[in-house]
């Protein structure tokens, strides 16, 4: 194959040499006899490429790029929206937390006040009961004391009467009572 090409090239050289002139030594680019052929095939090629590009390739790539732009834009918008929602959710959470905290504080304060009230009431009641009991006891003590004084008076009269009788004096009950009473005062 290689030698074959070599031969054809040599043959072409021979032909060129036979033609003679500048063409053999010169550039194939300036061989005007090939221009018609080159231009024809070039125009065919360009038309084919242009048709392929305008009918298939470029609209397709353009559509893909536009679709991607749209997707990215909408994704960004969605992300922005989600971010906004997240911020809102956080705010709501914080608000709920603060509300709950305030509510708890209120409940604690209420309970404390209620308990305080109950304690106060119980204390007051207990104080009243204690005061009543104390008064009652005082009354009882006073009564007992009065009773005791009376008994002492009676015993003193009886004792004085007995002592006088044993001494041989006869004393009336009236003067004894007066004497005892005045003694007991002193």
């Amino acid at each position, binding site marked *: 194959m290689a030698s074959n090409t070599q031969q*054809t*090239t040599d043959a*072409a*050289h021979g*032909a060129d040499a036979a033609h003679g002139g500048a063409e053999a030594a*010169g*550039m*194939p*680019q*300036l*061989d005007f*006899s*090939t*221009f*018609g*052929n*080159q*231009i*024809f*095939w*070039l*125009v065919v*090629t*360009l038309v*084919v*490429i*242009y048709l*392929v*590009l*305008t009918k*298939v*390739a*470029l609209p*397709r*790539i*353009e*559509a*893909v*790029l536009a*679709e*991607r732009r749209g*997707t990215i834009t909408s994704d960004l918008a969605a992300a922005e929206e989600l971010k906004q929602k997240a911020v809102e959710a956080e705010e709501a959470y914080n608000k709920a937390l603060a509300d709950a905290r305030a509510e708890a504080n209120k409940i604690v304060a209420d309970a404390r006040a209620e308990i305080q009230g109950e304690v106060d009431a119980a204390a007051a009641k207990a104080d009243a009961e204690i005061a009543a009991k104390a008064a009652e006891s005082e009354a009882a003590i006073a009564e007992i004391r009065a009773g005791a004084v009376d008994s002492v008076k009676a015993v003193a009269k009886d004792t004085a009467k007995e002592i006088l009788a044993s001494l041989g004096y006869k004393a009336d009950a009236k003067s004894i009572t007066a004497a005892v009473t005045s003694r007991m005062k002193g």
Partner: protein
Amino acid sequence: MADQSAKQGGGPIIKIAFFVVLALVLLSGAIFAPEHPGLAIHPMDQFEIKPLFGGDHLGTFTPTNQTLWMVLAIVGIVLLLVVGSRGRAIVPTRGQSIAELAYGFVYKMVEDVAGKDAVKYFPGIMTLFMFIVFANFLGLIPTSFTATSHIAVTAVLALIVFVFVTVLGFVKNGVGFLGLFWVSAAPLPLRPVLAIIEIISYFVRPVSHSIRLAGNMMAGHAVIKVFAGFAAALGLFGFLPILAIAAFYALEVLVAFIQAYVFSILTCVYLKDALHPSH
């Protein structure tokens, strides 16, 4: 040999590779040196246009080696832009990314250079760019054919742009398109002189536009061919030109893209002049 270098240790693979390259160089010198004594370089042979299916007759419609590589350029474009984008995925595959990259690259170029109202001519510029870039890169395949190295091809491309832009300029602006040649910023006496210069430069446009591309392609390929001839002639020291070819090939890869880019961006500049001819 491999055992020895393995025993010595320290990068046996590099040593093996070195010996392999050395052997190849010696072998190539042994093979090629006797066959072609002296310099037998035909750097322009690669640009010859030959009928694809044999025969000597080259009619207007005869498929040639150039036709084959232009058809391969179409195949490449279809593979990249049509097959590559068939998934229509929101998250693109590798092929689709490249197709979108090419689309975005040219689209942005048209929009930035020629303006927003030039976007409707984007498919035409995309056609030019894709054809040139594929023809250039396919031409870099060894033993292939570079369609854009022919002045006939690039001249037609440049003339299509020139005629289209000129007609568009007059259709859009009427006689006002001639304002492109009338430099209103210059002092009045200078304007006719400048107008002549502007008109000449306007008509030189398609010439420079086409020769720049064809010349770059042709020169690079010819230089590589010349170095290849040296490599064959030098025998033992043939590896030196081969290294030069490798370096030059890297440059050619760059040039292949840059020339396609330059051709397209100049088209955009001309298009801008046609749409907004005022200075």
